[in-house]
C-alpha cells in the first residue's frame, strides 16, 4: 500500500496507508499508553487511555482506532493529553482495589505501570469501591472481578484468536462484567491465553497465582516438551529444596514461532517435574526388587553386562529404544552409541509419522518443507486428516489466525467434523481411514475416488482442480498417510506452483528422533545402513546389516536371543504393548523419570532429567530446530546425554571417540567467539555456563555433539549464532537426505488430545485436574513415551 506521511510530536513519520496512529507512533519510539488495544485483535476503543490530540479534530482521538492520513499532525504529550490520561486512570481506579502488594500481577501489571507514569496521586471519588469475591472458573482460570478494567482483551483473544468464545461481557456501563460461558464456570480449551493477555490481575492461573513474584524468578526461554509443534515457552524458575522449581510458563515476549500462543500443556503442564513419584536415585534389581544404589555401582554394572553380552553374543543380542522427547544431541549420541559401542543396529523408537517415506518423496526439494511460520502466511492450506486443534494446537492457531488475518483459503479433508472446518473454505468429509486414498486420488489415481464415500467423482475432480490452481499451497498430513501415499501427495503438490508440505509427528522431538537415525535401518539423515560412507569415516567400525525394530526385539527377547535391552526415555511396554514377560531373561536398563510399565521390569533404572532440565536442540514437526535450555533442576537425576556417555565409559570405550569434546577432535568455535568479537571467548564461556550449556570442555556437553550433527547430518547446517540466540532455524534434512521405505505398520500415533501427553501427562496435576473436572470418571490413560 502507498505510504502516508504524518507528524507526531514534531517527528516526521512515514508508514503504509491503513496503519493505526498508535502503531505509527510506536514505529518511531513514541509510546502511547493503551489497555484495550492489542495487535492482531479487533479494535475495541474501550479504555480511552490512548487519547491524543490530532490537529483539526475538535476532540481528542483514540490513537488505537485512528487510521493515519496524509499530512496528519498528532501530539501525544501536551497538557490536554496528559490531563486526559490522568482522568482515565482515575476512572479505571474507581472500583479497582489498588492493593498491588497483595495482587498476583503486582510487579508486572500494566495498570500499575500506567498509574505510576500517568496517574494522579489522589482520586476525587468518594464512593465506596464495589467489591466481589474471587471466583474459580475452572482448574486453570480464576477471576477477581474488582481488578478487571474491562479492556475486553480476554473476550477477544478467546473468541477471535482461539475460536472458543467462552468469555463474554454481561450488563452495561458501570455494572458490566466479564462472564464465563457456563454461568459460574468455564468449559473451554483451558489455554490460559485470557490470563496472560489480561493487563491486570483480574484473571489469574491456578498453576501460578500467589506462589511468587515476577522479580523473584529467573526466566528461561526454552521449548515446550509436549507436542511436536515446538512452541517457545519462557519458564519462570525459583530455587527449591531440591534444585530449581518451574513455577510458570508463558511467552509474553512473543519471541518464538508461536508469538504469545501456548496451549494448556506448554503453559501449565510442567508440573510433572515435581511429582512425588519421580525416581531420584538409581535402582538395581536385587532379589527381585528394585532397590536404591549409587550411580557408580549402576554404571559399572551396566557397562560390565553390556560389554559381556556384546563380546559373547555379538551386538545383535542388544536392542536399544530411544525417545521422542530427548534432544537431537541425545538421539544422535544414542544412535552412535548403539552402533559403535554396543555394535548393534537394533535401535528404534515409537514412530509417530512416516518421516523416512516423506524424506524419500522430498529428495531434491529441500525448500518444499514448510516452516511453522509459513503456515501463518500461506495464501492456501490443505489439511488431510488429523485434528490439529487437539493434536497440534500451535498449528491450529497458525491456520486459524492466517484465515482470520490474511484471509487464507483453508481446505479440510477429514473423516470427522473437526473444529477447523469453521475456518475452512471447503470441508470434505471422507470415510474413516481413507486419508491415504484421498492422497492417492489427488496424486492422480482416479480410481481411488471410489473409496472416498458419498462425494461424487465430479466433486472430487473439482476439488483437485481447485487445489491445483492454488499457488503456494501448504499441504499438511499426519501418520494416516504413509509410504506411497506420501509420494503421491508430494507428486501432486509438486505440480502446484510453490507448494510446501508438513508431515505431522506427535511428540516434541519426534522429528528429531527420526532425523537423528533412531531406526534399525537408517543412520542420521535417513542414510541407509548399507551406505554408511561419511559416518563410517568418523564413527569407525559398525555393523552393516540392518538391526531389529521394536517388535522384532520383543520377539527376539521371547526367543531368548535378545540378552540386553536399553530403553532411553521411552515406555514401549505401556505405549506399544510389548509383553514384559518376554524380557524376563533379558538384562533391561531403563532411563526414565518415572517407574513406567517398562521401568518396572528393568534390572537397572536410571533417573533422568526431562527436557526442561537440560540443554540441547529440538526439531519440531516442520523441521524448525530450536535451542532447548536448562530451566528446572532436580538434584540426583542426570541428563540422558550424560548417562549414555557414562555407560560408554563403563564399557571401556574411549569417550572422546563418542563425544569430540575439548582439545583435538573439536571443530567447535565456541559459538560466537570468532572474528571481530574474538576476545569474547571468556565472556562467552560464562554465558554458556549460565545457560546450562557447558563450553565443550566436558564429555557431557551436548554442543560438542551438535558440532558433529551440523557436520554430518544433511540439512542441519543452520546458523549456530541464530540458534544460540534463541531463534528458530529451518533444517532441510527432508529434501537433502535420502529417505527410504519402511514397514508402515510400525507407526503408532500418540492420539493425544489437548489434555493428555503420554507419560508426562499422566504425572501432570494441571492436566489431570482439568480431565477430572470434565468427566468425573477417570479418563482412560494414553500411555506413551
Amino acid at each position: 500500500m502507498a505510504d502516508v506521511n504524518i507528524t507526531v510530536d514534531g517527528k516526521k513519520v512515514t508508514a503504509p496507508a491503513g496503519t493505526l496512529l498508535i502503531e505509527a507512533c510506536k514505529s518511531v519510539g513514541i509510546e502511547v499508553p493503551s489497555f484495550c488495544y492489542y495487535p492482531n485483535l479487533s479494535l475495541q476503543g474501550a479504555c480511552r487511555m490512548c487519547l491524543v490530540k490530532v490537529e483539526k479534530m475538535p476532540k481528542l482521538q483514540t490513537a488505537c482506532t485512528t487510521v493515519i492520513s496524509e499530512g496528519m499532525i498528532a501530539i501525544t504529550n501536551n497538557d490536554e493529553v496528559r490531563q486526559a490520561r490522568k482522568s482515565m486512570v482515575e476512572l479505571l481506579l474507581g472500583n479497582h482495589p489498588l492493593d498491588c502488594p497483595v495482587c498476583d500481577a503486582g510487579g508486572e501489571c500494566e495498570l500499575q505501570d500506567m498509574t505510576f507514569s500517568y496517574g494522579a496521586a489522589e482520586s476525587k471519588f468518594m464512593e465506596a469501591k464495589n467489591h466481589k469475591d474471587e471466583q474459580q472458573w475452572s482448574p486453570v482460570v480464576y477471576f477477581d472481578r474488582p481488578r478487571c478494567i474491562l479492556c475486553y482483551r480476554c473476550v477477544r483473544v478467546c473468541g477471535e484468536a482461539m475460536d472458543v468464545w467462552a468469555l463474554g461481557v454481561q450488563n452495561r456501563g458501570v455494572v458490566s462484567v466479564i462472564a464465563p460461558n457456563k454461568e459460574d464456570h468455564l468449559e473451554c480449551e483451558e489455554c490460559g491465553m485470557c490470563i496472560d493477555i489480561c493487563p491486570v490481575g483480574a484473571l489469574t492461573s491456578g498453576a501460578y497465582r500467589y506462589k511468587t513474584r515476577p522479580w523473584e524468578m529467573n526466566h528461561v526461554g526454552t521449548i515446550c516438551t509436549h507436542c511436536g509443534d515446538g512452541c517457545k515457552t519462557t519458564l519462570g524458575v525459583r530455587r527449591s529444596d531440591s534444585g530449581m522449581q518451574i513455577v510458570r510458563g508463558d511467552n509474553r515476549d512473543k519471541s518464538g514461532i508461536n508469538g504469545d500462543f501456548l496451549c494448556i500443556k506448554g503453559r501449565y503442564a510442567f508440573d510433572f517435574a515435581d511429582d512425588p513419584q519421580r525416581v531420584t536415585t538409581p535402582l538395581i534389581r536385587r532379589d527381585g526388587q528394585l532397590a536404591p544404589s549409587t550411580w557408580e555401582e549402576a554404571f559399572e554394572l551396566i557397562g560390565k553386562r553390556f560389554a559381556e553380552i556384546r563380546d559373547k553374543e555379538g551386538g545383535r543380542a542388544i536392542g536399544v529404544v530411544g525417545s521422542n522427547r530427548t534432544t537431537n544431541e541425545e538421539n544422535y549420541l544414542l544412535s552412535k552409541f548403539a552402533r559403535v559401542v554396543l555394535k548393534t543396529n537394533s535401535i528404534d523408537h515409537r514412530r509417530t509419522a512416516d518421516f523416512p517415506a516423506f524424506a524419500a518423496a522430498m529428495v531434491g526439494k529441500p525448500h518444499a518443507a514448510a516452516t511453522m511460520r509459513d503456515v501463518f502466511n500461506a495464501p492456501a492450506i490443505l489439511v488431510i486428516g488429523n485434528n490439529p486443534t487437539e493434536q497440534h494446537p500451535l498449528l491450529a492457531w497458525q491456520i486459524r489466525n492466517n484465515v482470520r488475518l490474511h484471509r487464507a483459503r483453508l481446505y479440510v479433508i477429514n473423516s470427522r467434523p473437526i473444529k477447523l472446518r469453521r475456518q475452512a473454505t471447503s470441508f470434505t468429509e471422507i470415510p474413516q481411514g481413507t486419508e491415504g486414498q484421498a492422497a492417492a486420488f489427488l496424486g492422480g489415481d482416479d480410481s481411488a475416488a471410489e473409496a472416498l464415500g458419498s462425494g461424487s467423482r465430479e466433486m472430487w475432480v473439482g476439488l483437485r482442480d481447485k487445489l491445483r490452481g492454488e499457488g503456494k499451497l501448504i499441504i499438511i498430513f499426519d501418520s494416516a498417510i504413509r509410504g506411497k501415499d506420501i509420494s503421491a501427495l508430494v507428486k501432486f503438490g509438486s505440480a502446484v506452483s510453490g507448494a510446501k508440505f508438513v508431515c505431522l509427528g506427535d511428540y516434541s522431538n519426534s522429528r528429531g528422533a527420526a532425523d537423528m537415525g533412531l531406526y534399525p535401518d537408517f543412520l542420521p539423515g535417513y542414510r541407509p545402513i548399507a551406505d554408511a560412507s561419511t559416518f563410517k569415516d568418523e564413527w569407525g567400525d559398525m555393523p552393516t546389516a540392518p538391526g531389529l525394530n521394536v517388535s522384532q526385539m520383543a520377539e527376539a527377547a521371547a526367543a531368548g536371543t535378545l540378552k540386553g535391552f536399553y530403553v532411553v526415555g521411552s515406555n514401549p511396554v505401556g505405549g506399544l504393548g510389548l509383553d514384559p514377560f518376554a524380557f524376563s531373561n533379558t538384562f533391561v536398563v531403563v532411563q526414565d523419570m518415572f517407574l513406567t510399565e517398562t521401568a518396572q521390569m528393568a534390572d537397572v533404572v536410571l533417573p533422568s532429567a526431562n527436557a526442561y532440565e537440560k540443554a540441547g536442540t529440538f526439531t519440531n514437526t516442520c523441521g524448525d530446530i530450536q535451542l532447548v535450555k536448562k530451566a528446572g533442576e532436580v538434584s540426583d537425576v542426570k541428563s540422558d546425554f550424560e548417562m549414555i556417555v557414562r555407560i560408554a565409559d563403563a564399557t571401556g570405550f574411549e569417550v572422546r571417540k563418542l563425544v569430540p569434546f575439548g582439545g583435538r577432535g573439536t571443530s567447535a568455535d565456541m559459538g560466537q567467539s570468532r572474528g571481530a568479537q574474538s576476545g569474547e571467548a571468556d565472556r562467552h564461556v560464562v554465558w554458556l555456563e549460565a545457560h546450562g550449556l557447558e563450553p565443550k570442555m566436558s564429555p557431557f556437553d551436548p554442543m560438542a555433539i551438535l558440532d558433529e550433527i551440523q557436520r554430518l547430518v544433511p540439512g542441519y547446517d543452520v546458523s549456530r549464532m541464530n540458534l544460540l540466540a534463541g531463534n528458530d532455524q529451518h533444517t532441510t534434512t527432508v529434501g537433502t537426505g535420502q529417505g527410504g521405505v519402511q514397514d508402515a505398520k510400525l507407526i503408532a500415533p500418540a492420539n493425544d488430545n489437548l489434555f493428555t501427553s503420554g507419560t508426562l501427562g499422566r504425572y501432570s496435576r494441571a492436566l489431570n485436574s482439568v480431565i477430572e473436572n470434565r468427566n468425573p470418571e477417570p479418563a482412560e490413560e494414553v500411555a506413551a513415551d
Partner: protein
Amino acid sequence: MRFSDEFEGRFSEMLSHYPTKRSVLVPTLLYAQDEVGYLSDEVIAELATRLDLTELEVRNVISYYSMLTTKARGKYNVQVCTNISCMLRGAEEIFEHCKKRLGVGPHGTTPDNLFSLEEVECIGACSWAPAVQVNYDFHENLTVDKMDQLFDECKKEGTQLRNL
C-alpha cells in the same frame, strides 16, 4: 422448541433484511419474550442454535437491554417512570404506592403472578408526566387514585381471562 406461526413468519421475514444472521437477534428476542413471557433457558438455546451464536453471546445481549428479562414476570408488567419530569410531578409517590399496593419491591412479582413492578428511566411521555407503562400500554397524568383504578381493571381482566 416450537414458537407460534406468527413468530416464525416474522423470524424468516427478518432474516432476509440483514446481511448477517446475528443481526436479527434483538428483535427476535423481543418477539420471543412477548410470546413466552420471558427468555427461558430453552428460548436462549433455541435462538443461539438458529443464529449460530453461543448461548453466552445471547445472554450477553439480553443482559445489556433492560427490557429483556430471563425471569418470568407477571401478566402485567408495571413500569413506573421516575425520571426527572415524572419525578417532579409525583412519580415517587406513585412508585411507593405501587410497592405498597402490590406488596412487592422493584423487579418483584405478586404471588398470583398477575403483576410485576419495575422502576424505569424516561419512557418518552414527559408531556403527560407522571407516566407508567403496563406491558406496551401507556397510562398518563397519573395520580394514586388513577393507579388504583388501573390495578383494579387489570385484576378484573386478568382474573376473567384466567377463569375462561
